[in-house]
């Protein structure tokens, strides 16, 4: 075992033991202290990942009742909530899109139409990757687009020193990163954030104020659009065209599109079911729960044989349910035990920086953390702390439910941030310095987010202050 992994593996439980056995500080309940102990372990394990993210979640879930932070029945009940099943639905949609080849068809046809010159093919990869994320979870889009982009590189015989190769690869990665903020189908972290927000309201006996599919997308999509436009400008500036002949790439795209043949009944069925699912999530999501609708349409996909169970098993890592279920239970324990309120009262500076700066700080901190830690883990760690802070500075906590997942989708530089960037760095064409202009996208996207909050969201009926 690597020393690094061993240190992290031991540091988590040691820190948790330290928090558990120290004297209970004034103002903190015993359950709160034990919840913080669980959080301490999760912080170390989620950040340094000596074990997979879902393993940390189930360890947290097991420790909650064992340490007396939360009754077992309550902890396990949280595991089966709507958000977990909606996330499962999101991944099943991605699975069926990949399995039927529908997503490949859409991306290849769009690319063929857009690939007229060097700028357009790069922008084509960027915008196709971004657009597909509206329906398919962004990591799956990256997995789908990687072979297409590498095929273009091979067709054009682009080597390790080619600017165009770097631009094409970063277009794919940055397109999916920006696209991860398009809708609730684009990433699972937004659903986690909304669920933690919902459980925060319930734990504080506040009236429920659910954020629907369309409402969330109306807030996040403009920021996503701003990010992808900024990415296009930054890529054009950082990697100027080299004047290469695109004919081999065009020929390859034509060959691929022709080899796919006409659209199949299975693909059309998939398209229809997904469109109906999105519509029903928008219309009935609030009433029956988004998880319920997602489950229903997942069952329809299986019933129509559009997706087989063995395919679902191959395309989805079921650890996602464990990760999110555990994270929700830990977040709830932190709220209901008063641990986060105590933590903030003790550790937060007394001055009130106001709602705007709180939002800006939340966005910057989240975006910064996401460069180093998985964005789901960032949401699981930050949301329980950020929600009570919002209350203290007269910021409607629902804005944190937007701010955190949006800014967790603004990591454009390091391979540790998202699987998409890990994949493109893994090709060997890129060094970290090539992705450094991504910092500009992060900065301008945060500015775009704050501008949207102040000028666009009020027009959509979302005032920033509580």
């Amino acid at each position, binding site marked *: 075992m690597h*020393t*690094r992994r061993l240190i992290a593996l031991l540091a988590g439980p040691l820190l948790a033991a330290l928090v558990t056995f120290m004297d209970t500080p004034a103002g903190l309940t015993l359950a709160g202290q034990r919840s913080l102990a669980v959080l301490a372990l999760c912080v170390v394990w989620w950040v340094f*990942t000596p074990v*997979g*993210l*879902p393993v940390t979640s189930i360890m947290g879930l097991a420790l909650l009742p064992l340490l007396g932070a939360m009754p077992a029945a309550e902890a396990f009940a949280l595991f089966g909530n709507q958000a977990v099943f909606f996330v499962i639905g999101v*991944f099943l949609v*991605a*699975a069926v899109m*990949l399995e039927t080849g529908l997503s490949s068809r859409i991306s290849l046809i769009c690319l063929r139409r857009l690939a007229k010159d060097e700028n357009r093919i790069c922008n084509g990869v960027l915008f196709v990757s971004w657009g597909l994320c509206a329906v398919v979870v962004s*990591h*799956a889009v*990256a*997995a789908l687009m*990687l*072979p297409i982009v*590498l095929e273009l*590189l*091979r067709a054009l015989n682009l*080597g*390790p*020193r080619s600017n165009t190769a770097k631009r094409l690869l970063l277009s794919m990665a940055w397109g999916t990163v920006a696209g991860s903020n398009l809708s609730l189908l684009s990433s*699972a972290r937004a659903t986690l954030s909304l669920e933690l927000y919902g459980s925060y309201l319930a734990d504080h006996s506040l009236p429920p104020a659910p954020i629907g599919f369309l409402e969330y997308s109306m807030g996040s999509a403009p920021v996503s659009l701003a990010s992808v436009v900024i990415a296009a400008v930054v890529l054009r500036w950082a990697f100027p065209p080299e004047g290469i002949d695109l004919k081999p790439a065009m020929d390859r795209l034509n060959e691929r599109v022709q080899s796919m043949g006409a659209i199949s009944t299975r693909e059309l069925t998939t398209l229809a079911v997904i469109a109906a699912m999105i519509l029903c999530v928008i219309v009935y999501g609030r009433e029956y729960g988004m998880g319920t609708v997602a489950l229903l349409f997942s069952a329809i996909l299986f019933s129509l044989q559009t997706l087989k169970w063995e*395919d*679902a*098993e*191959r*395309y*989805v*890592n079921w*650890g*996602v349910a464990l*990760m999110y279920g555990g994270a929700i239970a830990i977040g709830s324990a932190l709220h209901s035990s008063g641990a986060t309120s105590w933590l903030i009262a003790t550790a937060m500076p007394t001055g009130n920086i106001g709602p705007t700066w709180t939002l800006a700080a939340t966005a910057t901190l989240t975006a910064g953390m996401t460069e180093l830690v*998985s964005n*789901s883990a960032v949401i699981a760690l930050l949301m329980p702390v950020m929600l009570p802070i919002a209350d203290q500075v007269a910021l409607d906590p629902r804005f944190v439910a937007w701010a955190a997942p949006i800014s967790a989708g603004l990591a454009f530089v*390091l*391979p540790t941030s*998202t*699987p998409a960037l*890990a*994949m493109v*760095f*893994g*090709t*060997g*064409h890129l*060094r*970290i310095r090539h992705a450094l202009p991504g910092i500009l996208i992060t900065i301008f996207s945060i500015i775009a987010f704050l501008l949207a909050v102040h000028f666009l969201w009020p027009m959509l009926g979302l005032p920033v202050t509580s």
Partner: protein
Amino acid sequence: MNDTRILLAVSTSRYSQHLVDLAMREAQRLSTETVCIDVLYILEEEDLQHISKRVGDQGFLGVSTTADVMSTLGAEHHRMAMLRIEEVKAAAATQNVTVSVKEVTGRFVDSVLQQASEAHYETILITRADRPFVSRILFGSEADRVARMVKREGLGHVIIDEDETA
């Protein structure tokens, strides 16, 4: 007569034009009758495993998708290896230096040590992987590990090229 040999150990994440130039300069410096550069191209298993972990554990994509991504990346690593080996051969041709190539799959440290133990090398040339400086400080460097172990085993003299310009 024995050739003078230089080992140039590279991989997808550990390669730079500067390193190749350095190998050519080293060959000139040694300037015996025949200098042979053995290029050891390592397809690093660990690089792919790290990505696989991110795709599966962080991206929550299933085994099939992860396997497809790994296979795609594996093929691209091989293509990059071929392109880079051609670069080394082209540079060597201008210097009248013989080049032999070996492509292996494995861990960087183990592969270099294994190769170094199979022949006598005047110089072993390596460069660092692209990693954030803090990470290197905290968790050490594979390149430094190679240098330490080669020295300990008495397998030759290691030069770590600090210029990481690809």
